[in-house]
């Protein structure tokens, strides 16, 4: 087939396919058919309230709606329990099949890829800003609001402005212990928390081609922290290996065309990137971890949709094995899904954590957003593998959050201050 179309990015191609076109222009507003609609216990109550205003007896497709109760669960208080009950009743009466409760659930952005519910080439929306995580599968996936979810549950469609794309090319070699978290923190530090506002962030280059799926999920997860609409890694053999053992649906592979015009292209030499920490109160306030070694820590959290996967727990357990956490530190480990928890148990990581003096929790977003399971008091400092460190994010408005990789968080847990693995091992 002769292709006379102007070159397009993977973002344009996936959007075009979902609105029945071969080509869409950057800046164009399109009404696109979505493949998956996601909501959680925080955003679903509002979505259901809005949906109910439409007076419909059914959703557009009950197979395409996914609800995960993960933020304030296991229910942290009566109001949270009421919200979950409200959602449960909706899920029952509208026969939502993919509905996940405590005991079977995981943190949504770890759970959906793990179960093969999201696949390459799809257009996915979720009423959660970190829905951009699934871009690691070569899918187009983004966070929206509750009203958007309500509208999409009714019609199966949603409006999108076709975004420009920024290409990030990662070259060189990774220093020891450096992972996807360090790369994305470094990138956000470089371009700022609005450096990719309204843009699609394409992560590419020799380093990305060798990067594990878990690290790719971490990078795409934090695209939103640079203002990005999408974060995306093109499908390759690493994606295929991950997807083909999980996926139950047919999928289509899209790639950016040669010669396509990008809004901007950054070439990043990873040989110069040290372990990164984002200091309060912005994810862009990045420093080399070794330069913050005078910061004393009250609490460590290793988990979340950003860094609660098996690779993350392996790294943390490698560092903690045979060591005790600092006497003045509380350490909370949260495997992101039940499967990750079980795998970590079988591999002996959980035993290492408990013997080191860590608390290990059932999957929940809990402490990341100051919900429960590790809320900070006035003046306390935490180092966390989560994604945001805004004022009051983990509790008291006078508390502070430092963001890092699991390696730096685990080393800091042992030392009681911000530390690198080399100092511990």
């Amino acid at each position: 087939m002769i292709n006379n179309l102007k070159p397009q990015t993977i973002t344009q191609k996936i959007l075009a396919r979902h609105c029945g076109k071969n080509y869409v222009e950057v800046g164009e507003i399109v009404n696109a058919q979505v493949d998956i609609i996601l909501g959680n216990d925080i955003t679903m109550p509002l979505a259901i309230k809005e949906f109910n205003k439409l007076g419909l007896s059914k959703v557009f497709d009950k197979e395409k709606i996914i609800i995960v109760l993960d933020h304030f669960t296991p229910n942290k208080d009566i109001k949270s329990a009421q919200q979950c009950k409200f959602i449960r009743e909706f899920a029952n009466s509208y026969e939502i099949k993919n509905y996940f409760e405590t005991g079977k659930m995981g943190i949504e952005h770890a759970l959906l890829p793990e179960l093969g519910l999201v696949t390459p080439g799809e257009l996915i929306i979720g009423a959660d800003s970190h829905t951009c995580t699934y871009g690691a599968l070569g899918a187009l996936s983004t966070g929206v609001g509750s009203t958007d979810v309500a509208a999409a549950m009714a019609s199966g469609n949603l409006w999108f402005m076709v975004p420009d794309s920024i290409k990030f090319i990662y070259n060189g070699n990774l220093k020891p212990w450096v992972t996807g978290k360090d790369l994305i923190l470094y990138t956000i530090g470089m371009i700022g928390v609005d450096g990719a506002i309204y843009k699609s962030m394409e992560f590419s280059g020799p380093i990305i081609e060798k990067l594990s799926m878990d690290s790719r999920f971490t990078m795409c997860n934090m695209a939103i922290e640079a203002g990005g609409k999408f974060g995306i890694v093109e499908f390759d053999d690493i994606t295929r290996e991950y997807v083909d053992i999980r996926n139950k649906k047919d999928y289509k592979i899209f790639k950016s065309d040669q010669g396509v015009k990008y809004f901007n292209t950054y070439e990043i030499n990873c040989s110069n990137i040290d372990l990164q920490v984002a200091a309060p109160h912005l994810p862009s306030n990045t420093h080399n971890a070794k330069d913050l070694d005078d910061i004393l820590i009250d609490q460590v959290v290793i988990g979340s949709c950003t860094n609660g996967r098996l690779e993350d727990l392996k790294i943390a357990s490698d560092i903690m094995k045979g060591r005790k956490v600092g006497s003045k530190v509380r350490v909370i480990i949260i495997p992101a899904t039940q499967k990750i928890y079980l795998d970590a148990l079988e591999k002996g990581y959980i035993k290492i954590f408990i013997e080191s003096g860590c608390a290990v929790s059932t999957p929940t977003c809990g402490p990341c957003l100051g919900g429960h399971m590790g809320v900070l008091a006035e003046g306390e400092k935490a180092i966390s593998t989560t994604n945001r460190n805004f004022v009051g994010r983990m509790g008291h408005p006078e508390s502070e959050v430092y963001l890092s990789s699991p390696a730096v968080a685990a080393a800091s847990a042992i030392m009681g201050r911000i530390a690198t693995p080399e100092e511990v091992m």
Partner: protein
Amino acid sequence: MIITDKVIKYGDNINTDVIIPARYLNTSREEELAAHCFEDLDKNFKEKLKDRKIIVAGDNFGCGSSREHAPISIKESGVKLIIAKTFARIFFRNAVNTGLPVISSIEAGRGIGDEDELEVDLNSGKIIDITTGDTFNTKPFPEFIQGIIVSGGYIEYIKKTLK
């Protein structure tokens, strides 16, 4: 539609965690959300609201979470309009979808001062700063988004298209 009111001015990167802290997201009741709006950012917000109902801010207003509770808490507090240099995209969608007027303008975000009195024509995008005499001509919304606003929010718009 013309809005005439005074300004409460904030800085860059006003994020959803300070607009409505997550500890209050165990409810979706508008008045409860409004009661805690901006409480970690500005202890005097409620006091200022008595005679000022337009927020003017810098870059990336509403960055962070997708919580629609953020524009709802601001709207329910009585704020009539937000003008910012730029908006985070999910907040922008949520504001449009819930019927909270927002205007993006680098010049207006920079030029308008705290407590200035403004006259804003939402249809044309023209902002007059009565205090300083400055005028800012901002870009009106694309036709599609105007359709959502005219309908009174996205759900009302969808109702029409589903019929």
